[in-house]
């Protein structure tokens, strides 16, 4: 990799090397992206992060970590450090004449940060350069371009010495960095599905500009919906974080995805804190009759029971019905299905799962509106 006149940068610039190993890794990680455009965006952000975060951890704060990104949809990476939130904004532009930040980072309350860093990425020359930064407040007062929905500031409106940021964090404790931001109204549940379907379509090349900002922002500010949209654009099935939900309780959106919480009493749990004391249930409709899929924790940690039963009082599960579980990459495993060889009250599968394992559930015949779902444990 040639370093074209890597000679000298301004002394106030922070220039970090982007070596071949980092490039290769960032490129390989970016392959999960949904289309070439988002892959390139993913790649540049991965590269910038791979170089900046270790530097930040080594020099200033070893607890610094990534706080958020949605590279499939937006440029930029949020990092949490020492009580401040930074957003890296990578760019390929060689002229360092402006910092251009997508509106999402400025006007969505949960996305706003304290500081926004202008990061030049030159993959061929092999470096990443932080050449300036500014605050949320300054950007909010900057130029707003309604065509690409960005806020921008010119180079002389930025502070060019990144060291000023760290010194200011220590010496100017009361300084305000963020401007007030209006809350974004939540979406009507009826809108959600159609929005996700429309914007999750790969043919929609610029989803962030396709609908009014209010709708787009409402979608993005909800972490589950945001992930759902990203998964849709990548052509991946949605992921359902079971353990997380059971520990933290279900949010409204989980109930929109069809799941509800079940109170259960575990025999022999004896106040074991690590065992969840609730399960999850989802209603299904098969051939016009209501059924329910339950996921229940058993007494031993890591043991789960999947149960399919019918909801009409006095009914049974017809002969031939099958409840099946598959690994995340859709492979069978021993004991992964239960078939009704005759009419039964329920179908049951007990599994032993390591933390972090994932499963896909299936029922034959297919329930109405069946969508493949990856359950994460």
């Amino acid at each position, binding site marked *: 990799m040639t370093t074209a006149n890597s000679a000298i940068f301004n002394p106030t610039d922070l220039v*970090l090397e982007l070596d071949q190993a980092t490039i290769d890794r960032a490129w390989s990680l970016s392959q999960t992206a949904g289309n070439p455009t988002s892959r390139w965006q993913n790649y540049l952000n991965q590269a910038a992060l791979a170089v900046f975060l270790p530097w930040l951890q080594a020099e200033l704060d070893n607890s610094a970590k990534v706080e958020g990104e949605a590279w499939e949809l937006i440029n930029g990476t949020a990092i949490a450090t020492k009580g401040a939130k930074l957003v890296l904004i990578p760019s390929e532009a060689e002229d360092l004449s*402006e910092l251009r930040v997508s509106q999402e980072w400025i006007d969505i309350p949960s996305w706003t940060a304290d500081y926004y860093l202008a990061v030049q990425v030159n993959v061929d*020359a092999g470096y990443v350069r932080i050449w300036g930064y500014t605050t949320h407040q300054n950007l909010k007062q900057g130029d707003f371009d309604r065509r690409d929905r960005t806020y921008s500031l010119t180079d002389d409106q930025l502070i060019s010495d990144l060291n000023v940021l760290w010194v200011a964090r220590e010496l100017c404790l009361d300084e305000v960095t963020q401007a007030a931001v209006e809350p974004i109204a939540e979406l009507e549940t009826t809108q959600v599905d159609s929005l996700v379907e429309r914007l999750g379509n790969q043919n929609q090349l610029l989803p962030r500009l396709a609908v009014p900002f209010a709708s787009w922002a409402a979608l993005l500010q909800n972490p589950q919906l945001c992930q759902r949209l990203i998964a849709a654009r990548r052509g991946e099935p949605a992921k359902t974080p079971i353990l997380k939900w059971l520990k933290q309780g279900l949010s409204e959106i989980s109930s929109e995805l069809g799941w509800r919480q079940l109170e259960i009493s575990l025999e022999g749990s004896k106040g074991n804190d690590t065992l969840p004391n609730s399960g999850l249930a989802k209603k299904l409709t098969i051939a016009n009759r209501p059924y329910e899929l339950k996921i229940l924790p058993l007494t031993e940690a890591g043991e789960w029971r999947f149960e399919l039963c019918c909801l009409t009082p006095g009914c049974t599960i017809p002969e031939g019905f099958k409840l099946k579980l598959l690994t995340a990459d859709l492979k069978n495993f021993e004991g992964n299905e239960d078939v009704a060889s005759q009419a039964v009250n329920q179908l049951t599968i007990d599994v032993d799962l390591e933390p972090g394992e994932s499963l896909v559930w299936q029922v034959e015949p297919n329930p109405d509106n069946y969508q493949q779902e990856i359950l994460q444990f």
Partner: protein
Amino acid sequence: MLPRQDTVKIFSTFLQFDYDRFGGWATDTRLRRSMNQSIDKIDANNSASFWALYWHQIWQEQPASLAREHLAAYLQEVCFWSATKTINGFSSSQYTASDCFQVAIARIDKVLKGFDRERGFNLKSYASITFANLIRELLRQKKEIDICSDWSLLRKLSQKRMIEALANAGLDSEVIDRHILAWNCLKAIYVPERATSTRKLPKPEPETWQAIAELYNQERYTQLEQPAETATKESIEKWMLICVKAARSYLFPNVTSINQPKPGYDSGEIVDSLVGEVDDSLLTDMITNEEVAQRSQQQTDINQFLTTLVAELKPEEQKLLELYYSLGLKQAEIAKELNTKQYTISRKLSKVRKGLLMALAKWSESTMHISLTSDILDNISSLLEEWLANYYDSH
């Protein structure tokens, strides 16, 4: 080059290039008249630095006045030295000192805007590093852009730069908007397919042009004030070539009007409003000895503080500063001297500078009784740069 001595000349004459060499000074008679008028108002004989501060203050209040041109005249030598010194550090002989000079002096507003009269040392040393940084950056950019194919180049421009380039090429704003939309559609659709080798992107295939045209036609309803006609793939391609050409020629503008002296007003018709009012009260305020003495003492104190601070740094840190600031060595050369890797230089320098900045900030806060804000720290950072450049230059 013959530097100027006479105060009036310093603020009213401009450097002329004979090819790439110094070709004499040309006088702008308006500026000469303005300086003579100003000088007449005061009895005392004031130095050029005094007048620099005066005109800088006037410029802040009236950016469109003659003050800016007076300062451009004042900074001619500084700009000349920055240009010649910086270009010597670049091995390629494609660029002339004259080109660099023109580009730098055209960006004088950046110097004037960033100079902090309260804390900054003097306008010349601040201008010197600002011009040098500007020119170096520009040469680096030009070099990168020169090795890029047209299609790679389009990815390596900010929107601001692209708009400026198109405006510079004479397009009106509606036409520019269409070009910018098409350019953004191109960047969305035509992305590199490999991790590196982004400098030699080939021309897009017909199907790609078609996709870009379709995206443009879809987006024009929401993104353009007047959607205009449907674009074909041929028209998109044509527009992109215009963008490329505009971008390449924008980097080094041929003529800077600021360095061409205006035609003189020798006919005797002195129109006062054209010459610029001399602000009497401001002059009187400025020449009070108190302010001059205060600024001078401040600079001495800062100088003392920083000299001591630097002397307390570790030897390898001092060496690093010396190699960077005095010799203007390239990163690779510094790395070799210090027997370390090239890309660690920026990190090390940043770390040393952070220590100095922190110490200087705390000291400023306590001795000068100022409450620190990020903007003030930004100025202190510039002050530190100025000091480092001066200190190592004279040692």
